[in-house]
């Protein structure tokens, strides 16, 4: 187990360094410099370049950059004068985290219920309905769904606020938009896992002993079916992260995703790089934690040579 964790940790660090290097060199290839202003004299430009370390050789800049990244120093925004990228991320991550957690919670609960109902009532009308909902949730792009919700519930029916972030009711529509995909994915997995578990011998045994039908489903069925669900929580977190990019933009939620999209629109490269690295780190960390967790929960999986099959 320790060896496995260490090797995964090694991969994690290597992958992160790779992404950090990729961001650095991709940004190097962009034409122009931030101080490409005709009003600046040559001497002033030299001073500025010196101050930001842009006069040093690329290799030197690269190692400095890596060093800064490792201590969480991500540079200064072009757009917001003199504010560090780390501060911007810090200010905005809270809102995104709340939104993400709500969406994940809602999606897990609804998806789980939908999947269980579908499996217990296998091949009935309820099963088909649940699976149609799941296919719709998987297929309809999140920005389309968010747009439709905003238009119908917000603009036409005026039940809920259309945009901004000033209280719980403002978070309902963005949460639903994000939760749809999570719900659909969980529902499908839950259904197939439940069907698998309900076909096992120990379920027949429990029935034969005369245990109440719902008790069997609750104690034996759902509990065992939930184990493999852990593996998809990782990819789902990632999809939530990318989902926030568009959903926050649509509902004008002041989170990290909205900041990222706006930085792309305004070419604020330090922020783009910083948020990219931050997202990557989160992504890598989530996959790592999920791998380890799964190894602990289900000891049958191979621990050496890559846990995920």
């Amino acid at each position, binding site marked *: 187990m320790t060896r496995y964790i260490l090797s995964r940790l090694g991969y994690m660090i290597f992958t992160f360094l790779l992404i950090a290097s990729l961001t650095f060199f991709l940004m190097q290839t962009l034409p122009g410099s931030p101080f490409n202003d005709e009003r600046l004299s040559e001497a002033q430009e030299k001073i500025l370049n010196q101050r930001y370390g842009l006069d040093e050789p690329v290799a030197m800049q690269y190692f400095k950059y890596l060093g800064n990244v490792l201590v969480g120093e991500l540079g200064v925004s072009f757009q917001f004068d003199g504010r560090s990228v780390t501060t911007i991320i810090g200010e905005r991550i809270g809102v995104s985290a709340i939104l993400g957690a709500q969406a994940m919670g809602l999606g897990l609960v609804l998806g789980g219920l939908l999947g269980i109902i579908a499996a217990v009532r296998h091949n009935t009308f309820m099963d088909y309905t649940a699976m149609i909902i799941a296919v719709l949730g998987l297929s309809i792009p999140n920005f389309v769904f968010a747009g439709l919700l905003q238009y119908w519930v917000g603009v036409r029916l005026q039940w809920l606020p259309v945009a901004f972030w000033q209280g719980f009711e403002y978070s309902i529509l963005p949460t639903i938009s994000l939760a749809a995909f999570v719900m659909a994915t969980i529902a499908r997995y839950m259904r197939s896992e439940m069907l698998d578990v309900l076909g096992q011998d120990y379920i027949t045994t429990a029935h034969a002993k005369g245990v109440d039908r719902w008790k069997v489903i609750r104690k034996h069925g759902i509990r065992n079916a939930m184990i493999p669900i852990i593996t998809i929580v990782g990819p789902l977190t990632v999809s939530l992260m990318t989902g926030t990019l568009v959903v926050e933009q649509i509902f004008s939620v002041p989170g990290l995703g909205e900041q990222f999209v706006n930085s*792309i629109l305004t070419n604020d490269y330090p922020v783009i790089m910083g948020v990219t690295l931050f997202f990557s780190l989160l992504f890598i960390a989530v996959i790592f934690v999920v791998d380890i967790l799964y190894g602990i929960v289900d000891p049958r999986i191979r621990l050496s040579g890559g846990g995920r099959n």
Partner: protein
Amino acid sequence: MESLIQEFGFLEVDEISIPEQKLTDDLFEVERQLDKDVEVISQKPVSYLGDSWKRLKKNRGAIIGLVLIIIIIFLALAGPYMNSHEFDEQNLKISNLPPKVPALEHVPFLGLDGKDIEGQDTYAVKNVDGYYWFGTDNLGRDVWTRVWEGTRISLYIAFLAALLDLLIGVTYGSISAYYGGKIDNVMQRIIEVLIGVPNLIVIILLILVLQPGIVSITLAMVITGWVNMARIIRGQVLKLKGQEFVLASRTLGAGDTRLIWRHLIPNSIGPIIITTMFTIPTAIFTEAFLSFIGLGLQPPIASLGTIVNDGFELIQIYPHMLMFSSIIISLIMISFNLLGDGLRDAFDPKMRK
């Protein structure tokens, strides 16, 4: 034989030689006449693909998906030529017209009667005759033509990305699994690192540098997209290469290339098709997503994603622009997912749940 005799001179030639007699039919006789029809296969043998197709036909969802895909592809190819409007033909006098369709305009609840959301007949106000089936956008361009033109480009990007994923993934995966050992080890380590890279982030970074365009968007998707295919093919080939038919083929003198291309890959066709079917909607989504965050195709070229994005700006006053493009992009995604699910069940009945 000749060399054997030369080497072991003591062997008498007629002791080992086989009689020169030809094997003719009259040397044989049928033992039990009655059983002669027992071994005849009465039905035409069913191929793997034929068998899967038979199962697929029973899956209603998959067939609906398949029919929808065919209709959408047809409209994407032929739709823009069904009326006389050009996709980049601007005319500000007829901007923001609501949809109006002959015959269907008399069905009140469909909203295809050329009236805007306040119930005003814009066609009469602006003195426009003729029909714009999906209405016009803020520059007076025909939305019907633009939507299908955009669908064509979205599908083109998706198919191209899926094809490249397929080529790279299949080659990489089969080489890695077939040669095994050190080669496999190194190739798997590379994959292990790439798996940890968040796809969308890399795609966004690449587009920032490469500038959005059909080729750059496709390439950015392929750079990270092939990994999934490679892993699936590797698993398949690993499973297959230990089987007897591979050994038999090798014994008969088949080389590596022949084994990989003629035996291992054709036997993995099921997972290959399924994975491709799921790559296409993902690519369509990714492309639309990029348009949405401002990294999509630049005008005058438009994809479904950019049209959806344009529609958002006018959602409150002219919702029709968003509606049609959203419905079509959702339909494409739904059909490919339905077909993909159906194919998965059809190719692997054991997995069916």
